[in-house]
């Protein structure tokens, strides 16, 4: 049997370090927010032939609003693994429809090889991003309240506190890592964070269920033994479940990275993979010992009172 509880301080230290580093990075550098949050325009074309960066810049030149816009070249592959045409991604501020149409026309004139259908034009007003953030935060807050109520009803309040703390821990760490990496995030990232949320809940509750069950069968009030035993009994399941989920995610990551090269999709899967790691880790090393701390505190108090 592995002594998880005996090593809990090391885990707390590691988590504290990750959270502090993440929060510092979030405070100093923030997140690299994409147009879904800040508003703006993203245009993606396949120009057909090898277009030099100068030619592309010349095409953008007449559009004053695109001064300072970033141009990125992406490379995908077809299913045989052969490289497809190089794609262009232009990111700039919000452009109304006439301007976007004018830009597409300009590119069509300059690059006759440009395909008509292989393009993406997205324009988002600043209002939308603010709403998305507000809505996601509000929903998460209400979801947490509802979960606390359910877990308190089915287990007890302390289980709810431990579970929710582990959840917030996971989300802060994933956000922190994205802040450090400065990968651009958009709507799919919000979905990924919610998925991390769901995965963590599921993973933690199953261990909490074991603890709940083992408390009933324990001989004497040794909670340390109960928690250690519960984690160990659940260990194979924790590993197998995270492993199988990671198998699916790794296949997706490889597919999106190798064949499409689209950053939004890669960010999405990377967030999910991080979430599985952090979620599995926190159920074992954070949520369970945390519950013990809450439980043991009361326990030691009552013992002390008896001694007095």
């Amino acid at each position, binding site marked *: 049997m592995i002594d998880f509880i005996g090593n809990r301080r090391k885990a707390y230290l590691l988590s504290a370090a990750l959270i502090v580093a993440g929060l510092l990075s979030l405070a100093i550098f923030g997140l690299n927010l994409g147009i879904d949050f800040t508003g703006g325009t993203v245009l*993606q074309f396949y120009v057909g032939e090898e277009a030099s960066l100068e030619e592309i810049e010349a095409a953008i030149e007449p559009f004053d609003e695109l001064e300072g816009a970033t141009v990125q070249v992406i490379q*995908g592959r077809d299913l045989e693994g052969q490289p497809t045409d190089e794609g262009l991604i232009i990111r700039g501020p919000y452009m*109304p*429809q006439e301007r976007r*149409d004018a830009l597409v026309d300009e590119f069509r004139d300059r690059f006759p090889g440009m*395909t*008509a*259908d*292989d*393009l*993406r*034009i*997205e*324009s*988002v*007003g600043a209002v*939308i991003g603010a709403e*998305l953030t507000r809505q996601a935060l509000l*929903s998460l807050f*209400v*979801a947490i309240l*509802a*979960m606390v109520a*359910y877990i308190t009803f089915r*287990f007890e309040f302390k289980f709810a506190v431990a579970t929710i703390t582990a959840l917030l821990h996971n989300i802060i760490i994933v956000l922190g890592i994205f802040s450090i990496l400065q990968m651009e995030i958009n*709507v*799919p990232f*919000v*979905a*990924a964070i*919610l*998925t991390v949320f*769901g*995965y963590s*809940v*599921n*993973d933690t509750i*199953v261990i909490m*269920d*074991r603890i709940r069950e083992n408390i009933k069968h324990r001989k004497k009030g040794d909670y340390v033994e109960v928690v250690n035993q519960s984690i160990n009994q*659940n260990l194979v*399941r924790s590993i*197998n*479940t995270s492993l*199988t*989920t990671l*198998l*699916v*995610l790794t*296949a*997706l990551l*490889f*597919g*999106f990275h190798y*064949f*499409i090269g*689209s950053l939004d*999709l890669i960010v999405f899967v990377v967030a*999910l993979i991080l979430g*599985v790691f952090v979620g599995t880790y926190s159920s074992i090393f954070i949520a369970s010992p945390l519950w013990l701390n809450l439980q043991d505190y009361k326990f030691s108090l009552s013992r002390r009172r008896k001694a007095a």
Partner: protein
Amino acid sequence: MKKTSNPGSLLILIVLCVLIIVSAYHAFQNAADREEGIRRGLDIAGGLYVLMEAVETGDREVDEDAIKRAIEVIRNRVDELGVAEPVIAPQGDDRIRIELPDLEDVEQAREIIGRTAMLTFVGPDGEEIVTGAHLERARVERQPEVLPHPFVSLEFDREGARRFAEATQKYFGEPIAIYLDDTKISEPVVRAVITEGHATIEGNFEFEEAAELALLLRSGALPVELRELESRLVGPTLGQRTEEIAAYAAAVGLILVLLFMILYYRLAGIIAGFALVFYLSLVLWALNYLPTTLTLPGIAGLILSIGMAVDANVIIFERIKDELRSGRTIRSAMESGFNRAFRAILDANVTTLIVTVVLFILASGPVRGFAVTLFIGIVCSMFTAIVLTRALLRLAFKSGVIQSGAYVGVKI
């Protein structure tokens, strides 16, 4: 160990497995069908998404009625262009969401969003008489016995009729210009005072010209001005590539998961494989027949629910193994393992279900799509793990297919 076997159970087991394979085959085929299958969001299949906000201008108020009529106008416009399965729906109090998943080409889409114009009737002195808000109908008509050319007939609502009556009196014999935004589309001369709200525009029209004018009048009859908040256009080819790659990757991932389950849990792993395949067909079936759209966030929800479905099976098998190790017979280990696993699965799934319900109520757009697929996924996953895995395991035991702990990966 005494060998038990029951040919009836074996038959049922085989029939169930065959049924699962057949239903999976149908579900996957159905899902792969881009025309009839699951509705795909534009982020994975291409298409156009536009979110518009109605703005108050002058005396035109933004109310429920105005939004309803604006939606009607846009629907007409979209229908004229023959786009399949359009969604044109109100969102909140003053917004309209347009989703056109099945675009033939990009030009078509640009045309549709380009024509969100305001129709106004303006007198020769530049004074606005009436707007498209009061125009109820515009259509091309023909009365060969009276008129040599086709004409456009207009019908105004009561307020429109009143204003039009005043204007035709005031501007008798003068031209009234009809503008679509800043473009003049017609300038008929007033030849009669229109009091009943029924007007006609006559001229030396060919039928097509008159029809075009009627269409412009109809589609321009937006009761309020609409402003674009968000517009996303993804070319069909680009979207299709994303979907193809995601489908291949998911298939590879799933095969790896099944292989892992079989290697680790042996015969029980095969049973879990059947349960998972059935779970997937159930989810695909539900996505197909419920009014949902599968988007990238939706796929995230799906991946999570697959993870949870696998997890439920893993929890069950690990519990059974625990019971076997504590010395129970395979039969009693299966039953008590199930009962113990059941509570963990139930609580974990219900807690996550609560999250999806909250998200569904409070969020909109992509987050809501995530909540819907996750909800469907969890319900299907609970059903297959609790009902199907259990039934298959029992049958496998009764029929003698599973005879000892070794068959579920326990060495004793």
